[in-house]
């Protein structure tokens, strides 16, 4: 289990205990956190589960797989700390992770 904090663009804070093995995207979708669309269902094919990872966490996450950066080219307002939340797999190491959700996904 890991506590993941999702902050929406209108500053609403959602603290969710997410089971290990799920993705950060699934943690949001299953708990009705608004702002993560995940149209393709986690296939790294749509860039609609885009999040900004808080800086102190960014370097601790697993490296991006081939293709994630390509998809981020298409995301809404990508930044240096952008990730696709479907590629972040929850484990105890991610306990305390904070992600910001962009104002839009498309």
């Amino acid at each position, binding site marked *: 289990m890991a506590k993941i904090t999702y902050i929406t663009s209108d500053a609403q804070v959602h603290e969710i205990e997410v089971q290990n093995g799920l993705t950060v995207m699934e943690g949001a979708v299953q708990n009705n956190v608004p702002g993560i*669309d995940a*149209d*393709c*269902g986690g*296939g790294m*094919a*749509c*860039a*609609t589960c885009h999040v900004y990872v808080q800086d102190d966490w960014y370097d601790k996450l697993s490296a991006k797989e081939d293709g994630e*950066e*390509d998809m981020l*080219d*298409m995301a*809404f*307002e*990508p*930044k*240096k700390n952008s990730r696709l939340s479907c590629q972040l797999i929850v484990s105890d190491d991610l306990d305390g992770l904070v992600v910001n959700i962009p104002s*839009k996904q*498309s």
Partner: protein
Amino acid sequence: MIKTDVLIIGAGPTGLFTAHQIKLIGLDCEIVDNLDKVGGQCIELYPDKPIYDIPAVPECTGEELTKNLINQLKPFDIKFHLGERVDEVKKDNINWIVKTNNGKMFSTPNVIIAGGVGSFEPRKFPVKECEKFENKSIFYSVKDKKIFERKTIAIFGGGDSALDWAVELSKNSKVNLIHRRDEFRGAQATVNRVHALVKEGKINLFTKYQMTSVKGNGQLESIDIKNDDDEKKNIKADYALGFFGLIMQLGPIANWGLNLDKKTIEVDTEKFETNQKGIYAVGDICSYPGKLKLILSGFHEGALAARACFKLARPNEKYRFEFTTTSSSLLKRLGKKE
């Protein structure tokens, strides 16, 4: 006005197999899709990705699955209307009148929505003011390249579309290419060509930059861009082109009076009918208790919706359940028997 027994919206795997089931039981159908090709998400999002959970097909790619489904439709004569988005569905006595964005009209007792997550539309610039210039000096595709001759163009994106147009338009226009990072995802040969043109001074390249605002009065005049380190630049541009791929949008479906649950359409599990008689939803776009967003579920849903269509298309006939192994009428329709 085109008359048909069933109009299918969406030419993805579910729409294609639904068409098979409709033709097999002796009804006519036509298919509309907003993309310019058949296959839906399988072709647009993951043509090369292997799929492992199609019954009796241990492994196939999205492209192979689409090809096989098209092959399976070969015995039948089905009219596809590609590059058309259905904008309006209205009731006229017993039939539904369906209009597309290009003005095509259909009259049908049955509409099956096999629309996936909606229609694919180009992703647009995040900057709100771009809307004012859209289709005048800001575009997301190129219809007539002549308008760009001897003008200054700002092209945004890092994939094949952005690179191909940068190369092509650099022949007769001043091209600025802007991309959010140093790496491009386009074909290596095109990337090399772009770098060569940058060296020759034919293309101005700005990497790690993104658009922050657009300026102009009626016609675009300049664009502000900013890089990761907050360095700002203003570039002159008569036109801007954005190539950020496609996004799925529910779009006009939201206005057809259907009961929606988030981005999906509520249906019953007997006919896969919506709250509107004669409008059905199958595949990823439908929802009901226990719904699985699997291609195989779409096939089942389409088969049942097809049978439900029979009643409205042939009110005076009785549908008879038959097997393709034994029924001579089915074998005739499949072209296996005289």
